[in-house]
């Protein structure tokens, strides 16, 4: 029975509406001081990635366009050339943007999709599905990620689509755990109860009522996990385990180290890819935090910045959840009403 329900209230509706007005949303990010920085930087990187062939003076993939090796920066070669292959470093830098953005953003979006599906299913359906998903999460938590990624690339192959697949397969757990906790709260809210009483199907409730309630977490986590994946990809490429055919910032750093940039004092060769990674990660994180602040009005302005530390995905997201849980207890929003002690705390962070 798929009947459109008239009762739609609280946050779910608000966020849905906001999502529809993407233009308005971007405007709001723009009016936020930090958001303006993040949006500008992300926009800049996207433009660089799309128009890379027009921006870069040389094509670093083209063997014919390689010149004298180890040139210092000049007007022809803005950042000089590499010592071992004679590629133009500035062009490599520009083309490297593509790899970082594609791997980061694609994995971020896929993680959000997988994480939300499994998190909502675990939280709302419960029972066997719940314990299965949570056991997988627990097991993934204890296996060290980078070594596991290395083993999987060894077994499955090293082209970028496989690497993205591996990142998604290992990256959804933190998000799923957080979404599940939030769903446990939403499940007991009045509007979901009303929908259940009205006879809406489980599927309908999950898609139309529960999922919109988690959308602010999803959007933020997409930006944050994209940032995290960019760091991870750079590390993998630095170890020489990324896609062997592509030019990425991590690989540039590895080549610089092995090619003797340190010995020859070619600081521009080492510094610039690092700055590239930093800018990409920083801007995506900034954007994620600002989006969270805008969509979750209960969070204090710029308090989100404090909450990001080290553990890019889970720690921050969990704190956001905790902040929602607190408000649920105080009963500020009608959308969050507790069942009788069914909600358990996700982290030990609240003493």
């Amino acid at each position, binding site marked *: 029975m798929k009947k459109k329900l008239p009762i739609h209230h609280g946050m779910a509706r608000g966020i849905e509406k906001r999502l529809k007005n993407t233009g308005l949303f971007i405007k709001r990010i723009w009016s936020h001081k930090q958001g303006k920085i993040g949006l500008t930087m992300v926009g800049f990187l996207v433009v660089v990635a799309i128009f890379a062939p027009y921006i870069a003076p040389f094509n670093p993939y083209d063997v014919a366009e390689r010149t004298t090796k180890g040139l210092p920066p000049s007007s022809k070669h803005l950042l000089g050339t590499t010592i071992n292959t004679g590629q133009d470093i500035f062009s490599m830098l520009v083309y490297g943007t593509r790899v970082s953005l594609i791997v980061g953003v694609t994995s971020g979006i896929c993680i959000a999709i997988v994480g939300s599906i499994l998190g909502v299913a675990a939280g709302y359906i419960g029972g066997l599905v719940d314990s299965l998903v*949570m056991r997988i999460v*627990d*097991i993934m*938590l*204890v*296996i*060290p*990620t*980078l*070594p*596991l990624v*290395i*083993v*999987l690339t*060894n*077994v*499955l*192959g090293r082209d970028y689509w496989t690497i993205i697949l591996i990142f998604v397969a290992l990256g959804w757990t933190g998000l799923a755990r957080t979404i599940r906790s939030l769903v446990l709260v939403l499940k007991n809210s009045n509007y979901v109860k009303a929908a259940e009483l009205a006879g809406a199907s489980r599927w309908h409730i999950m898609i139309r009522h529960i999922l919109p309630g988690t959308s602010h977490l999803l959007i933020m986590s997409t930006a944050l996990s994209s*940032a995290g994946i960019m*760091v991870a990809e*750079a*590390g993998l490429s*630095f*170890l020489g*385990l990324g896609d062997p055919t592509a030019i990425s910032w991590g690989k540039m*750093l590895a080549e610089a*180290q092995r090619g003797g940039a*340190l*010995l020859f*004092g070619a*600081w521009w060769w*080492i*510094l610039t890819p*690092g700055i590239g*990674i*930093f800018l990409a*990660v*920083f801007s995506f*994180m900034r954007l994620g935090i600002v989006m969270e602040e805008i969509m979750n009005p209960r969070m204090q302005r710029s308090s989100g*910045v*404090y*909450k*990001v*530390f*080290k*553990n*890019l995905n889970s720690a921050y997201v969990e*704190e956001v959840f905790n902040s929602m849980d607190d408000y649920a207890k105080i009963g500020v929003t009608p959308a969050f009403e507790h069942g009788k002690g069914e909600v*358990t*705390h996700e*982290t*030990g*962070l*609240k*003493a």
Partner: protein
Amino acid sequence: MKNTYVIKRIFYSLFVFVVVITLNFFIPRIGVVDPAERYYPPQGNMSEIEYEIIKQVTRKQYGFDVSTWQQYLNYLQGLSKGDLGKSFRPGSPAVIDLIVERLPWTLVLSVSTLLIGLIIGVMFGVVAATKRGRWQDTLLLNASTIMVAIPGFFIALMLSFYLGFELEVFPAYTDSNMVANFDWSLAAIRTVAYNAALPVLSMAVGSIIGHAQGTRNAVIAVTNEDFILTAKAKGLKQNTIRYKHILRNSMLPIVTSLGMSISGLIGGQVVIEQVFNWNGMGTLFLEANNTNDYPLMMGIMLLLSGFTILAILITDLVYVLLDPRVTVGDKR
């Protein structure tokens, strides 16, 4: 109540460990059809029959000549005796020996990073929380927003560039004779410390900021609790409140983050060891990866996972001692 919780936790950890062992066994077998073939690709002048014989011998030597299920049972049996299998290296040394040889060198780095990160980080965090909004706090905020966006290996590269090559304060690459010449003499220990300075420093930066940020948040959360207000209203001394009430209660999240940071520390060390050419488990792991030495790779993975499971278990148990409330609800 407490005992049931503890026993449940221990059994759950064991269950997770068994699943990890099983995964460890089966992951290398996803893509590899025949380990013998993968490890010994046919040489140029080798005849078909010769190659077949070599493959047969290899299979026999590494126990691949029986069914996968039987291999799994053999693996489990070996594990119960502390045998992680044989490496594919020439002379097929036992994996466990290779690991034990490198383990101390990895632990030197991780333990010192952990200690430095924890001590300085907690101190910094407490200062930032007590001076909330002032320059100490702002410094921490700015440092952490910038530091989370910089990969650890880039910090390591920059340090080895400036402190190693430009200023020549510390060695940019680890002295390759360090491991071979080590003999517990004071000079040898000093050499290790000298060589370990940069790797530890580059990992400690992130660790300090992580722990500082965590401590700051925990201390502020406790400071806002009602019982602190009560303590103030009772007219207790500022220091009594700070050390006995606030710090003791903010220990809990610090313990949690400690347990979690151990797995991250070991994982992240793979890259740092590579930058400085440090002869630890990370380097061993990469060597194994480059030579498709699956038994060695899986042995290291198993050990690291085991460490993490143990760390999380201990954290949880310490938690029970520190905060009796956790046994009431399901924590995870």
